[in-house]
């Protein structure tokens, strides 16, 4: 029991990761797929933030009386990864807009019927 409670942030990571992954695989609607992808990526952000925590450490700002700091590097890394995630979402949504214009639908089973080669 303690094992689960002590690592609750990692359980959240795993739960979000699997939820997102499941949505990406099963969703029929392309927008939902992008949402699933976002949830999937968000779980990784939490993983990185969890890594940064040093037990007993404070925020990484130089102040008097603090000797132990949390690691600021993963935060910076994840800032970059968030930007990448936003860019992926933007490109994905732009593609969905063009799919909607070309096919008149964003449901996978509907445009699969229109072009059977795909």
């Amino acid at each position, binding site marked *: 029991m303690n094992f689960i409670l002590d690592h609750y942030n990692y359980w959240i990571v795993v739960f979000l990761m699997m939820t997102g992954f499941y949505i990406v695989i099963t969703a029929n609607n392309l927008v939902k797929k992008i949402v699933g992808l976002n949830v999937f990526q968000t779980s990784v952000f939490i993983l990185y933030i969890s890594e940064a925590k040093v037990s007993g450490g404070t925020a990484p700002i130089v102040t008097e009386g603090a000797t132990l700091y949390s690691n600021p590097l993963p935060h910076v890394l994840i800032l970059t990864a968030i930007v990448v995630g936003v860019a992926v979402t933007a490109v994905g949504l732009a*593609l969905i807009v063009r799919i909607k214009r070309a096919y008149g639908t964003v449901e996978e089973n509907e445009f699969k019927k229109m072009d059977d080669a795909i």
Partner: protein
Amino acid sequence: MLEQHLAALPILLPLIAAPITLVLGRSSFSWAFATLISACACLFAWQLLALALTNGAISYEVGGWPPPWGIELRVDAANAFVLLAVSALSTLVLLYSKDSIEKEIEPSKHTLYYTAHLLCFAGLSGILLTGDAFNLFVFLEISSLATYTMVSLASDRRCLIAAFRYLVMGTIGATFILIGVGLLYMSTGTLNMLDLANRIDIAESGRTINTGLAFIMVGVSIKLALFPLHMWLPSAYTYAPSAVTAFLASTATKVAVYVMIRFIFTVFGLDHVFGSMGMDLILMVLAIVAIFKCSYKATVQSDVKTVLAYSSVAQIGYMILGISLVSATGLMAGLIHIFNHALMKGALFMAVGAVFYRVGSVDISAFRGLGKQMPLTMAAFTIAGLSIIGVPLTVGFVSKWYLVTAALEQNQWVLAALVLGGSLLAVIYIGRVLEAAYFQQRPESEKTIEIKEVPWLMLAPMWVLVLANIYFGVDTSLTTEAASSAAEWLFQNNEMPLGNQAGAE
């Protein structure tokens, strides 16, 4: 000044040039500018390879921050060799694309195409040159996002769905790599690849590191389209504009193969990945299944672009097979095949794009009678096709030769036979196209359309690649020297950190 920053230039130049290309506005201006930039980058890559071969690895500190804290660019024989292939292909494809994209991409999107191409090229150079695991993920995403855009530029609406599928698969792959890098950082506290190699301590945090290894390997396998994670590749290659397919087929997956080599040999270490984790067997089985399953699939497709796309997956199987043999010769065969396959597939997809330019279709029936009407294009297709099969005097033979030698070194006779068996399937799928082109007549109903040779600007890059196919097939000194020194370097480097550790204890 220039010499000092040489290692950063192949990344910086296209990255800075990409927005300028967008501002230039006119299609012909941006074409000339993008080609010039790509040619300069190719020149720098050539110099880097020469430097790396004579002086050994070059380390460049980005922003003056020394590694392992700052980001390091690290040029050695292995990545300079792949970078040279990528930048040369990029330049040739850009030359080719001026006429090709006129038929396949709307005029308003031409500048966007050149911008995306330069961004993709910058990303690929970044992946190759960086010595930082997280930086690698960022460059991977830069090149991938540009790739999704480029695939979606075609006028056929199916390209949109292909691009979307590629985006979903590619993002999952890249996120897997991100998770893996995160887990490695968690157990080592560093992101620099060489530093990682020294600090990976299997005994203490083996489970975290092995999970990281698994995530990274699956992520990279999606990116390099290793069977059975290749499902995005055939549709993306089929529906993308021909010039884009020629570029992607000859560079993007090759760079991903390089990433796999780098992680296996530099970061995790050969002994761990192949010794205690037994990854070589997994890779070998998947590679052989890829060669046969996808070569077979290539023989039953009717769209020639799909045929070549499945053939690409099969050829990636050969590269992975070379790596999975765990010997310097095997690795060398894999590296040579990265270079050689770029030459053959670039030429093949360019020839198919030329057929689309004149005939307007790439179905196998569209090739009927083209042997007479487009003799130069079909001759290029024939020679590059023979190279895929592995006929002597072409580069394909050199790759197969080293691969078979590597298999025989370990007395793996069955494996050598399988490699040669895969070539027989290549005879069938290339032969079907050649049979249509040379031995079938054009149907009467289609004879009204006059078909002639494509503009010289499309023919020239295609023939440069074809001649390179023959040149490097006859004079193998450059490719084998670069590949063997790269392979030896990777192997040596691999034993060194392990030896140091043993000495320290």
